[in-house]
C-alpha cells in the first residue's frame, strides 16, 4: 500500500491518461493482484493536515463541526487541528455545540451538530417521493404522469455526533456518527411515512490519523468521485438525479502530501462494501486529487454547511465484482460472473475566490463531474428502473417460476439468451454557486445533470414477451435546477427552488416533471 502511494506521489503530471494509469496501478497493487482495490478519500485530509481551512466549521470558529456539510471526514479532523483560522468572527459565526471532558491533552470531546429542516414540495406529476433519488418520471400516457402531487416533509432533518479523543503517540483517533430520518419503512402508510420517519445512519466511522497514513473504518462517502469535495449547492436532497453520490462501509487508507503547501496531493485507496455480498469480493477504489491551497472558494454542499474550500480536481476509479444467480428456475445451481467498473473526474473551481469562510460577498464557485462506467447505477442516483426480465415459462407452470435475484436491481440484467450483462452509464454534472453582494447571505445556485446508458436499449428487446419492459425502462435522464437561499440568521436558512426533470423511455416516451420547493433549515 505504501509503495503504491509513493509511486503516485512521485508523479508530477496528472492528465487523464496518467490518472488512468495510476488508478490501474492502484488497483493492481492495492488489491493484491488486480482485484478490486478502491480509491476513496475521507474528505478530511485537506484541512486536517494543513490546518487549513476548508473544512472548518461552517460557521464560526470552533473546531468541531459537522462532517456532513463538508467532506464527511473532515469533521473530526477539524477538531483536532483547528482549522478555522478564519480571521475575525463573521456574521455567519456559530459556535459548535461541544461537550468536553478531561483536561489538557487528555481531553475528550463530543460535538452535536445537524439541522432541523422542513420542505414544502409540489410536483407536476406523481413520480417522486420527497426525495427524487433514482425514481423516473411517470409516462405521459399514465394518470400519474398527468396528475400533480404535494408533499410536506421533515425527513431530511439531521443529527450527528462527532467525537475526539486524546492523541496516543502519533495516532489521533476521531469518530463520527450521523443520521437523518430517511430510514426505510416497509409498505407503510402515507401518514407514517411523513409523520413518523425513522432515523438511519448516514455516516458512522472511526478515523485514525497518523503522519504517514490515515485510516478510515466505517461508513462515509465513497472515495469514488472524491464525492464531498465538489458537491452541488441545491435545495433538492442529494444525490441529485444522475449525480455520483454514495455512502458505504469501507476500509480506507489515504495520505495528503504537502498538505500545507501551495499544491497538495491527496492519494487514497479503499476496500468498500461489496455491491453484492454474494460476490465475496469487496469493491475496490483508488483516487488522486490535486489541491490548490491558496485558491479558495465558498461552497455549500447541498443546502447547508457553507465553508471555504481550496480548488481541487480529482480523478478516481472503482471496480466491482458480480456473481449473479444463473437465470434459471430455482433452486439455484450456479452463477454468472461479471465485473463492473467506473471512472470519475471531479472539479471544484473557485471562479471568484474567497479568503476564508466568512468572506462570502460576491463569490462564485463552479463544480463539475464526469462519470463513466458499467454496473454503477447505485452510485450515480440513476438506473433507469432496469429490472430483471421474467423467466420463460414454456410449460405454463402455475405458479410461474420466479427468478431468485441475489443482488439489487438496476446493475446487471440478462439478455434473451440468459447471458448476464452489466448496464453502462455515462453521467455528468455542472453547477455554479454565486454568493450575492453585499453580505453573501443571499445565494443563487444552479445545476444541470445528465445520465445516459448506451447499452440499455440493446439489452431490452423490442419484441417478444419482454417488450413491456421497454415502456418501464429509461436510458436517458436529465435534471436542471435553480435555487435561491437566504440566511435569515446565522442558524436559520430559507430557500426556494425550481427543478426540472426529463427522462426518455426505451419506447420513445419522454415525460417531464417540474418541482417547486420551499425550504427552512435551522442549523446547529
Amino acid at each position, binding site marked *: 500500500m505504501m509503495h503504491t502511494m509513493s509511486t503516485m506521489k512521485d508523479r508530477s503530471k496528472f492528465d487523464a491518461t496518467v490518472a488512468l494509469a495510476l488508478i490501474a496501478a492502484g488497483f493492481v497493487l492495492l488489491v493484491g493482484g488486480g482485484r478490486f482495490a478502491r480509491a476513496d478519500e475521507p474528505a478530511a485530509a485537506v484541512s486536517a493536515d494543513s490546518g487549513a481551512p476548508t473544512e472548518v466549521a461552517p460557521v464560526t470558529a470552533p473546531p468541531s463541526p459537522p462532517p456532513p456539510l463538508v467532506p464527511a471526514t473532515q469533521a473530526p479532523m477539524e477538531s483536532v487541528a483547528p482549522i478555522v483560522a478564519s480571521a475575525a468572527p463573521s456574521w455567519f459565526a456559530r459556535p459548535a455545540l461541544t*461537550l468536553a*471532558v*478531561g483536561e489538557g491533552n*487528555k481531553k*475528550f470531546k*463530543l460535538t452535536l451538530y445537524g439541522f432541523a429542516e422542513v420542505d414544502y414540495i409540489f410536483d407536476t406529476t406523481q413520480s417522486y417521493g420527497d426525495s427524487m433519488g433514482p425514481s423516473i418520471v411517470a409516462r405521459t400516457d399514465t394518470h400519474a404522469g398527468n396528475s400533480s402531487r404535494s408533499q410536506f416533509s421533515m425527513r431530511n432533518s439531521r443529527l450527528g*455526533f462527532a*467525537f475526539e*479523543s*486524546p492523541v*496516543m503517540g502519533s*495516532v489521533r*483517533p476521531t*469518530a463520527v*456518527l450521523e*443520521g437523518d430520518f430517511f*430510514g*426505510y*419503512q*416497509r409498505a407503510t402508510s402515507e401518514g407514517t411515512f411523513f409523520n413518523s420517519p*425513522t*432515523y*438511519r*445512519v*448516514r455516516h*458512522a*466511522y*472511526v478515523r*485514525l490519523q497518523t503522519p504517514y497514513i490515515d485510516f478510515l*473504518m*466505517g*461508513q462515509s462517502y465513497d472515495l469514488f468521485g472524491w464525492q464531498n469535495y465538489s458537491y452541488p449547492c441545491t435545495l433538492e436532497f442529494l444525490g441529485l438525479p444522475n449525480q455520483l453520490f*454514495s*455512502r*458505504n*462501509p*469501507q*476500509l480506507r487508507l489515504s495520505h495528503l502530501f504537502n498538505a500545507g503547501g501551495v499544491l497538495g496531493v491527496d492519494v487514497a485507496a479503499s476496500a*468498500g*462494501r*461489496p*455491491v*453484492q*455480498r*454474494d*460476490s*465475496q*469480493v*469487496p469493491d475496490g477504489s483508488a483516487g488522486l486529487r490535486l489541491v490548490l491551497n491558496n485558491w479558495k472558494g465558498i461552497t455549500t454542499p447541498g443546502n447547508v454547511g457553507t465553508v471555504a474550500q481550496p480548488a481541487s480536481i480529482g480523478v478516481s476509479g472503482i471496480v466491482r465484482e458480480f*456473481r449473479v444467480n444463473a437465470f434459471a428456475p430455482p*433452486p*439455484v*445451481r*450456479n*452463477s454468472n460472473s461479471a465485473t463492473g467498473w467506473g471512472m470519475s473526474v471531479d472539479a471544484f473551481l473557485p471562479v471568484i475566490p474567497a479568503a476564508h469562510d466568512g468572506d462570502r460577498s460576491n463569490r462564485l464557485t463552479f463544480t463539475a463531474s464526469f462519470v463513466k462506467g458499467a454496473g454503477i447505477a*447505485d452510485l450515480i442516483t440513476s438506473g433507469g428502473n432496469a429490472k430483471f426480465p421474467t423467466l420463460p415459462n414454456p410449460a405454463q407452470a402455475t405458479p410461474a417460476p420466479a427468478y431468485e435475484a*441475489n*443482488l*439489487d*436491481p438496476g446493475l446487471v440484467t440478462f439478455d434473451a439468451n440468459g447471458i448476464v450483462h452489466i448496464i453502462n452509464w455515462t453521467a455528468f454534472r455542472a453547477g455554479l454557486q454565486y454568493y450575492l453582494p453585499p453580505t453573501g447571505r443571499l445565494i443563487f445556485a444552479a445545476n444541470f445533470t445528465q445520465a445516459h446508458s448506451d447499452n440499455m436499449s440493446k439489452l431490452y428487446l423490442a419484441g417478444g414477451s419482454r417488450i413491456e419492459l421497454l415502456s418501464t425502462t429509461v436510458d436517458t435522464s436529465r435534471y436542471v435546477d435553480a435555487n435561491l437561499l437566504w440566511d435569515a440568521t446565522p442558524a436559520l436558512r430559507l430557500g426556494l427552488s425550481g427543478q426540472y426533470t426529463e427522462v426518455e423511455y426505451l419506447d420513445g416516451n419522454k415525460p417531464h416533471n417540474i418541482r417547486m420547493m420551499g425550504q427552512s433549515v435551522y442549523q446547529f
Partner: protein
Amino acid sequence: MSGARKAPALIAAALVLVGGGRFAQGDEPTAPTVSLPVSSPAVPAPAEETGAAWFARPRLALTVGEGPAAYKLRFFGFLEADYYFDSTRSYDDSMGTALVARTDTYPNQVGRTQFSLRSTRLGLGFDAPVAGSVAPSAVIEGDFAGDPPDSTEKVYFASPVFRVRHAYIKLANPYVDVLMGQTFDVFGWQSYFDPSGLRNQLFSRNTQLRLSHEFNATGRVTVELAASAVRPVQRDSGVPDGSAGLRVSFNDWQGIRTPGNERIVAMPLTLGVSGIVRQFRANAYTPPPIQNSNSVMGWGVSLDGFLPIIPASNFTDRGNRLALMVSYVKGSGIGDLISMTGGAQFPTLSNPALAYPPPLYEANVDNGLVTFDTKGLLHTIDWTAFRIGFQYYLPYTGRWIVSANYTQAHSGNIAMLYPREGAEVDLRTHIADTARYADAKLTFDVTPVVRVGVAGQYTKILYLDGDGPHNVRVSASTLYLF
C-alpha cells in the same frame, strides 16, 4: 414436554425464594456489566471514571443544576465497523437464529462478504435528583440493526435504521429497586454473564416490570433477588411471562471481563440461578376462520457463573488475567431467548378436499416456539443449551485480549414433532435439532477508545434428516468507544 412437569417445581421454588410472587422474574439491571445502563444511581461509578490507568476514559457527561439538585446526561456507546467473510451464504451480518445452508444446496458451496456498521450503538443515560429515598434514573440505548429484512442490499447495509435496545426507568431505593421498561431479561441474569448474543446463548431484551434488591451490597458476599413480569411471548396468551432469580456475588474475588466487545469492567465471582414461565394460547390448527385456541405452558431454568481464574484487584489491573464464563439452560418454548429455534415452523394444514387455494393456518405466535403434531396437538419445543468461554488478558498491559467460546443447543423433542413421512416430510430437510458454535478472538486496544480485533467462528448444524453443514466465518472489526 416431559420437562414441563419439572419446570413448575423449579419455578415455584424460585418464586418462593423471591417472595411468592406470580410470574416473578429475576433480572438485574446490568449494573456491573453494562456500563451505562446499569450504573445510574444504584451502580457504583465505573472504574473508567477514576482516570487512574492507561485505560481511563472520562464519561461524556453533561450536568445541569448544583449539588443534590443536579441533573445528569451521559452519552455512551461505540462506533463499530465489521468486515465479514463467510464460507457459505447462510448468514447476514448477524448470525441470529439462521441455520447453515444445507450441503446439497448452492448457497452452501459459495461464500459471502459483508461490510457492516449496524452494530454501532448510541445511548443516553439520565440521572435526576434523589427525591426522599428514591433515586430516579433512565436509559435509552439503541443500535442500527432495525431494518426490515425486505429492503435492498444497499439500504440494509448503507442506510441502517436505529432501533431500541434498552429504554427503561429505574427507581432505586433502600428497599426495593423498581425497573420499568426494556432491558436484558432477568432470566439468565444476562447482563452479568456476557450478553453478546452468540449462537445458542441466552440473550434477550424485553419490556418488563422488575423488582429487585441487593442484600449486603458492599459486604463480602452480596445476594440479589429479583422478580419481574415480562412482555408476554405471545400477546394473545393474555399472560405476561414471569421470571425470578437469585444471584450471589463474592466481592473480594474480582475478575476482568468484556461483555461482548464493549467496555471492559471488573466484576466479582458471581453465580446465578433463574427461571421463567410463559403461557401460549395458539390458534387451533384448523382452517380459518379461527374458532378456538390451544394452550400450553413454556418454561426455562438457567444456571450461570462468572469465575475469575486469575483474579484482578480492579478494572485497570488487566495484565495476565483470566476469567471463565459458563451457562446452562434448559427449557421448553424458549427458542426466542437462546438464539436458536432450529428453523422450526408450523406444518401446512392438510387439504383432503384439494381446495384451491389451499387453506392456510393463521398463526398468532412467533415461529420456533411451539408446533403441532400430526394429530393437531400443540407442543412446546424443548431446548437444552450450554456455553463455556474464557477471556485472557495478556501480560503486561492487558491491552491484548484472547477469548474463546463454545456453545451448543439441542432439542430433545423436535425430531419427534416433525414426522418422517407424509406430506410434511420436507420439513425435516430444513429444520435442525442441534447447533454447535465455537469462536476464537484476538483484540487489541490501540488507544483507550479504539479497539481492533480479528475473529474466527465455526458453526455446525444437524438437520433432522441427518445433513450436517458447517460455516466458517472470518471477521475483523474496529470500535471507537465513548
